[in-house]
């Protein structure tokens, strides 16, 4: 029982006053004089470029796998785990070219649902696109681009609350992409080796792991939801490890995003014969 309850003073009903006149000039969108629009403009440009490239790559439905003919086992991260039947014909020796026999389109369109959903519901990307595309708000102290606002309280934005489930799926995908990176050390007909392609897939998998682990939902589930850390030593240690990564979640989000596109581009260029995957040893 709280003090106020003991004294029998509650609950007291108080009004919130709204509509009283405010200070400052009314008509102005902002009084900021710095170039506040740069950041949303850069965000919008990079995100749009990524989406454009990903759409292009996803609709190709070919050149995503470098196989035994070129003595490589490299698969684009956009097409892995390759769960469409068509993959089996292309990436025959590569594991996970299975199920989804109903799928007749480019396998990437099916696969990308998970990373897309993960990033779309990510707390950082939400900030990024709310600011740069939805203008809500475009920058701090700059007026919202919309007349009414309900935030994430209603459909569809309330669906962002599923983020942790996309995290679980993304972690599974990371396991598969890590297997892909391991398989990239295999050079069919030439034994074990290491090429630029191997490096690309290894770095890509590592970046995706760090990005996913630095996720806010991950931080919460690993330890953030606990109030008595002293009684949960292991979860506290996990939370302590994730916290500094989480502080860099934005940077990790960008680096991993750009790198995953570059990885696809690399595999695509090699697979289509435009460049040769240089074997380091």
């Amino acid at each position, binding site marked *: 029982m709280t003090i106020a309850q003991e004294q029998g003073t*509650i609950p007291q009903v108080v009004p*919130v006053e709204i509509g*009283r006149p405010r*200070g400052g000039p009314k008509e102005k969108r902002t*009084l900021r004089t710095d170039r506040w629009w740069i950041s949303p403009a850069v965000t919008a440009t990079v995100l749009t470029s990524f989406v454009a490239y990903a759409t292009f790559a996803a609709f190709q439905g070919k050149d995503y796998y470098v196989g035994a003919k070129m003595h490589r086992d490299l698969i684009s991260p956009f097409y892995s785990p390759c769960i469409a039947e068509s993959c089996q014909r292309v990436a025959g020796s590569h594991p996970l070219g299975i199920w989804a026999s109903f799928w007749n389109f480019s396998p990437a369109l099916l696969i990308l649902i998970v990373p897309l959903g993960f990033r779309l519901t990510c707390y950082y990307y939400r900030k990024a696109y709310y600011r740069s595309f939805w203008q809500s708000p475009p920058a701090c102290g700059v007026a919202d681009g919309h007349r009414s*606002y309900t935030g*994430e309280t209603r459909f569809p934005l309330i669906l962002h609350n599923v983020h942790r489930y996309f995290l679980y799926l993304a972690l599974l995908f990371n396991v598969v992409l890590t297997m892909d990176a391991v398989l990239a050390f295999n050079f069919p007909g030439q034994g074990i080796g290491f090429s630029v392609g191997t490096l690309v897939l290894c770095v890509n998998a590592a970046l995706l792991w760090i990005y996913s682990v630095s996720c806010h939902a991950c931080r919460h589930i690993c330890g953030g939801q606990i109030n008595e850390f002293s009684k949960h030593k292991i979860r506290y240690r996990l939370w302590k490890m994730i916290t500094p990564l989480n*502080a860099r979640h934005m940077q990790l989000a960008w680096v991993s995003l750009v790198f995953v596109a570059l990885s696809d581009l690399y595999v695509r260029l090699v697979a289509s014969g435009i460049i040769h995957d240089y074997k380091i040893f």
Partner: protein
Amino acid sequence: MSEVTMNVWRGDSNGGNFEQYKLERVEGEVVLDVVHRIQATLAPDLACRWNCKAGKCGSCSAEIDGKPSLMCMTRMDTLPNDTITITPMKTFPIIKDLVTDVSFNYVMARQIPPFTPGDPEPDGTYRMQQVDIDRAQEFHKCIECFLCQDVCHVIRDHEVNKLYYAGPRFFVRLASLEMHPLDTVDRRALMREYLGLGFCNITKCCTEVCPEHIKITDNAIIPLKERVVDASYDPIAWLGRKIRRKSKTTAEEAYELAPARVAPTSLDGIPATAVEN
């Protein structure tokens, strides 16, 4: 000696406009010093609120070149322009010149069920470990300047949301209570249904302006949002509660513990003028 032009908002609830004051620049000054010099030499009736001049009382909040800031912590030499605009906090009703009525925040503060510990240990005391309270230390730095409330677009640009929105400062307060090892109240449903946690779209302006550098969004709001997911949106967590026969506190139950509650709880009955604003 170079000159600076201070473009200061003068006015009250009946309206107002900018007045320009030209002054000499003095090395090492902060904006509040210049405002004081205006008061001393050019406009003795200029109203502004201040107290400590050390960034610790949270009184001198205003908007400098459109950015919510403490006047006493903004050095003049960090402002690139020769004309500097000072306006009162935009989100709160104006009283006079740079002074606003921040009582909205006190109403919101009273809606939060206070710290409520369980039964003490047999020796009549409470015990907790340092690691259990380290996390909340950051939240206790808040000086209640309400700059975060001011910059938050949820109420800055949408007055009507003031009816259902506690705001970042109080999410910080709620986080310190919810994460407290000894506290026994579950405020998750209350935050979701009445205090407007879902209105925040984590765009981080509160974090950008906080003079105490509290990572409001990352360390208070997002963890609270995740706790609300546990309570209301996660089927596995729901199943876990069923299996362990645990119940959660409803919003109404939690609200009973609060010192006060705000009057309207739905859009019905809001005066038309309010919605228009």
